[in-house]
């Protein structure tokens, strides 16, 4: 049965009095994969941050509903505990706080009980193996000294442990080499199938879409969606750039 997971209605968002997202609308149902593409600076990452509740941005009108409940008045951590996960474009490093300690606290908070060490380590070891990460990384400070690709794998590791239902992937492919891209893509798809999750992918390039097959591809320009299609739209953008949306597609199937 189709259930609405994320509903964004007439959303307008400002940062320092500048409108970044304008009357934005998007519906994501369960078990759907949506992609938002667009040139730099059109508000794609802002959209992800606003869904997660980043306090730097101000929602001036509209609403965001998660599982039919408005989340605008919820704190960042409440949204996360409800099941929204945001894999960041540039995951930051936090010195002194180890990955394992942080994840154990996060999981205990989400489940509202103290997670047993044995079960936690077992889960973590499996996730580390699945992602072909170095085991030592989980005992290091969060993202400290990690390469761009390792940071992205670490985001997916967190996703696998925290088991969200709505996953937002902001340029998850940047910094990943070909082999790592495949590993990350396959892990996301396996998770998607096993947990009946919904995914919103924000990307510039369709290369991750080789592994994660989207149901819908949206093109965002100037703070709103101007076109929606399927994977063909993403592949056309890769070939022709965004200009064809102004000029009309050279590929007649998109007319």
């Amino acid at each position, binding site marked *: 049965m189709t259930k609405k997971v994320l509903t964004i209605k007439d959303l307008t968002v400002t940062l320092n009095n500048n409108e970044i997202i304008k009357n934005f609308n998007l519906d994501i149902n369960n078990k759907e994969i949506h992609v938002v593409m667009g040139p730099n600076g059109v508000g794609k990452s802002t959209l992800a941050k606003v869904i*997660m509740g*980043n*306090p*730097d941005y101000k929602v001036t009108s509209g609403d965001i509903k998660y599982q039919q409940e408005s989340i605008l008045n919820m*704190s*960042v*951590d409440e949204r*996360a*505990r409800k099941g929204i*996960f*945001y894999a*960041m474009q540039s*995951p*930051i490093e*936090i*010195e*002194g*706080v180890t990955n394992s*300690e*942080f*994840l154990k*606290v*996060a999981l205990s*908070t*989400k489940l509202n009980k103290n997670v047993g060490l044995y079960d936690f380590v077992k889960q973590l070891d499996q996730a580390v193996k699945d992602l072909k990460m170095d085991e030592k990384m989980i005992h290091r*400070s*969060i993202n400290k000294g990690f390469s761009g690709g390792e940071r992205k794998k670490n985001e997916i590791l*967190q996703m696998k442990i*925290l088991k969200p239902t709505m996953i937002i992937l902001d340029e998850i492919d940047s910094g990943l080499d070909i082999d790592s891209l495949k590993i990350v893509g396959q892990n996301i798809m396996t998770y998607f199938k096993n947990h009946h999750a919904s995914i919103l992918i924000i990307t510039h390039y369709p290369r991750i879409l080789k592994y994660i097959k989207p149901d819908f591809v949206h093109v965002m320009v100037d703070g709103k969606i101007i076109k929606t299609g399927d994977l063909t739209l993403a592949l056309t953008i890769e070939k022709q750039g965004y200009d064809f949306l102004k000029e009309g597609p050279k590929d007649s199937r998109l007319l």
Partner: protein
Amino acid sequence: MMNKIKIVDNQIVGSHQTPFIINDYDKAPYLNMTKQTLFIYIPANSNINCDLDFDYQTKKQNILVLVDQNSAVSFFEYKTGLKTTGHIEYMVLNNSKIVINRYCATQTVTEKIMFSLNGYQAQVDYYLATITNHDKHYDIKVTHRANATKSNLTCHGISLSGGQLTFNMEGKVNKNSQQTKLNQQSKIMVFNQGEGIINPNLLITDNLVEAKHAAVIGKFDQAVLFYLQSRGINQSTALKLLVKGFLLGIMDIGIDNKYKIIQQIDTYREECYEC
């Protein structure tokens, strides 16, 4: 082997065998100490790694630690309680190195800590982690009196709501102390009404010296908080995680001592962590 030694009012408590000598003033008659001073003498060629517990809550304490030549010393000191008022001096002689990892959660502190690097290639690495919601005042000074001496002073402090934390840091290089290296790094993170003061000073009177200093007072980065909260961790738990990382991250200590510090940090009430 790790020793645990407790010293109360100039005396060692318990029947521990100590790897150093206490209050034998004849070991350094030239220092003209009075019997009010707790004197710890570390013989030449020692290799010592121990936990120290100085209990001097009730009266002002003077402590002098002399590290004789060719020795390697590592101390961990954990302090809690109501009040610390003291003057501690460490003298390090030729080719010796002292490493001190110190956690101080005493409520109020007025301390002078001095390091005198008196011998060729003498070294000190000092790591202070401290947390307070009261007044704490540390004067920390290192004097390089010989060639090729090295000092590294790293102080991390948390000033919780109601706290006033001061680090007065001084690195001094005397004349004719060449090829010396100094590094000072002081950071204070403040919460709500907490205050922090750092006075970083370098007084260098010779050439051929490499000196660095950094002083930071501020709050934890909102982007870092957002990251932790985006994984479902509420604000006060996220801040506690950051505090633990900030304080423990500078220290090289065993798991038992880390656990002891974590438990102590957890004793502060949630309100203390309000931004």
